[in-house]
């Protein structure tokens, strides 16, 4: 696939760890692809699977969730719920026919600026290879036909 496809990625970052980590990557002037749009939450445990699925039906090409490492969640176990929900959501996407690789969960601590950049780079590359979100194309075709 000729890759002038520029994926749109929605990133959910938690206030205490990954958002800080992203900040650190920023002030350290680390380069990473500009494809992500960030939504900051206090904890990734706030993420209802519906947010992820909704984003993918609205045309986003990939959803990235980055939270604290297990054992380091500011609220104790929030990220553990996230992990379970992401496992379920990936399966849901797979059952429906959307590539589960379009959803990615990573643990990024506040001090892990380089890791954040790396995660974004890898995920953007992966999403680029997957191509545009097929559900969005399907719904767009339906409405425009």
């Amino acid at each position, binding site marked *: 696939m000729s890759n002038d496809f520029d994926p749109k990625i929605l990133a959910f970052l938690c206030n205490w760890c990954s958002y800080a980590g992203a900040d650190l990557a920023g002030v350290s002037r680390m380069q990473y692809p500009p494809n992500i749009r960030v939504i900051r939450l206090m904890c990734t445990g706030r993420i209802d699977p519906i947010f992820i699925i909704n984003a993918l039906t609205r045309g986003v090409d990939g959803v990235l969730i980055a939270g604290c490492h297990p054992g380091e969640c500011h609220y104790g176990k929030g990220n553990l719920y996230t992990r379970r929900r992401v496992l379920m959501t990936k399966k849901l996407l797979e059952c429906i026919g959307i590539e589960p690789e379009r959803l990615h969960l990573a643990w990024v601590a506040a001090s892990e600026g380089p890791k954040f950049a790396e995660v974004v780079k890898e995920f953007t590359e992966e999403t680029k290879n997957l191509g545009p979100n097929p559900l969005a194309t399907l719904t767009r075709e*339906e*409405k*425009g*036909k």
Partner: protein
Amino acid sequence: MNAIEHIPTVCPCCGCGCGIELVLKNGKIAGVEPLKSHPVCKGKNCLKGKNAYLYANSEERLTTPLIKKNGKHEACSWDEALDLIARRLSEADRDAVGFINSGKCTNEDLYLIQKFARIICKTNNLDNASRFCHSTSVPALLSTVGAGVMPTSTLSIEKADCVLIMGANIQETYPMIANRVLMARTKGAKIITADLRRTPTVKNLTDLHLQIHPGADAALINGMMKIILEQGLADTDFIEKRTSGFDELKSYLDTVDLPEIEKITGIDVERIKEAAVAYANAHNACIMFNAGIAQHAGGVETIQTLADMALLTGNYGKPGTGVNPLRGHSNGEGFGDMGTVPVFYPGFQKVNEETAGRFEFIWGAADLPDKPGLTYMEMVEKCPFLYIMGANPAMSAPDLNELRKAFEKKELVIVQDIFMTETAEMADVVLAGTSGAEKDGTQTGVDRRVQRLRKAMEPVGNSLPDWEILCRLAEKMGAGEHFPFKTSEEIFEEIRKCVPQYRGITYERLEQAGGVQWPCPDEGHPGTETMFVEKFGTPDGLAHFQVAPYKAPLEMPDDSYPYILTTGRVNFHFHTGSMTRRTERLQNEISEAFAEISLEDSENIGIAGGDEIILKSRRGEVRTRARVTADIKAGQVFLPWHFPECLANMLTGPSAGPPSRMPEFKFSAINIEKVEADGK
């Protein structure tokens, strides 16, 4: 201790006649469930059915009769209201009273109102809103096959291997019929839809969409018939044995010019050919149609062409075939059977001296009217006294400005309904009726299916069933002996005597889910699934081909009014919304009117989706919001007619002449104006 009861009854909305169960907790309606054993709905309901009868508990219910004094409605007793009516009606001239009734009433209610009109007021001035939907179907089908009813059973639609849907959006308006079409399609049937819009039916159920220019359907079918003849696909055996008039049709079809048809319909000849060949090659081809075809000045001709095409290809008399009108109301078939029309007594017996004489004998009455009565709009114009039962002309009739003026000049307007409808607002006397959940009775669905309605709750407030009100009024007018009925079953027993098609049906037989389909001549007869198996309903038993050329709509667009308006329904509301707009779940889905405008037109006029616009016709104007979509073609506008704040019928107008007198709801010329930011 809690008590739970399940009362099986029938949905009061469309003509599918789906079974529902009202769940009563401690005597009050707590929910609605689909009836699993019902043969038509198979345990499935649409959103309207799932909320059926919940409006019966609305606070807006009329709970007492009202009399208008000094411009305001005041509560009164039944005696007061009925005494007043009795006095005024007794003074009225013969034929000065018009009875407008409704397919929302039960067979028992309707049977009594026509008996009342004929015995007491000595008039045949009876009509209802089917004037506005199937008054073209009846003469068209009478002239071809001898009966204006649905010849196949809903269940048999599955057996068709080709279904042609004309002017109907069945997925939104008749979901259980759409289900059967879906089942047919799963088995390999080809589904062809002719509709000017890309409706959900087109997108989900259709293999070949003919996006036809509005009103051009007769041209399309005549074109298809020409192709069928040219390709040698006509069923010559059937034509020979069961029809007459073929030669005249053939001569006419020889003159039909396909390039001309292409121009009129806006459809490529190749596509017309594809449709024609698919239809003609099928073993069992089914045509169904509704208002999109019928509500035109040329409706009679179009439906005749449909019947012609079915006859041409031998598609009558077998399950899953025929030309099937889809009646809108839950009792849309029943009202016709009960004779609440100006030209028939009960049982489709024509109004004339002979029939009048026969009913004089059956009813023990004298001097029954033997000349056809006035139709709906004629009554609205000419009758100084109007008795309106379950109908809402202030929303469903065409040219509403004129109607309002006419109402102001009436001697007496009586409205019998369950809510203060727009028409009831204008009435002098308002009589509080009951919904179908508060009374027993029967109703007859599209496929001639007579079913039982069961009482699930007591009448709200001081309301009374329609039939009981008529009995009381008749008593006051000195004709009580003809109305001695204490139960709806007693009325049904009399109906059986007068309507030969119902003779074999009893309340006991109606205990089973799915009722009995007429004709049912005797109690041992199982009911009739498919009509015209041996003979047609004509006097000679043969079907008659009719030459029916395309007739252009009455009001073509011009420079002042360049757009074509068509009206229709949506999934979530039913008709004038009197029931559905008082049902929370349905009102939550859509509570505001909208008009579908094409992408091109919206660009040209400079409007975006959600903008307020004004639609204007020669007769009136309405304000609404634009919904911009690719599903409608440039130059065309679709407006649902469920919303009293945006009365589609302010805009519609001209009516055809006899025999149908159908208002051309589906084709009016309008203009669109943008509402500027400052509201101008």
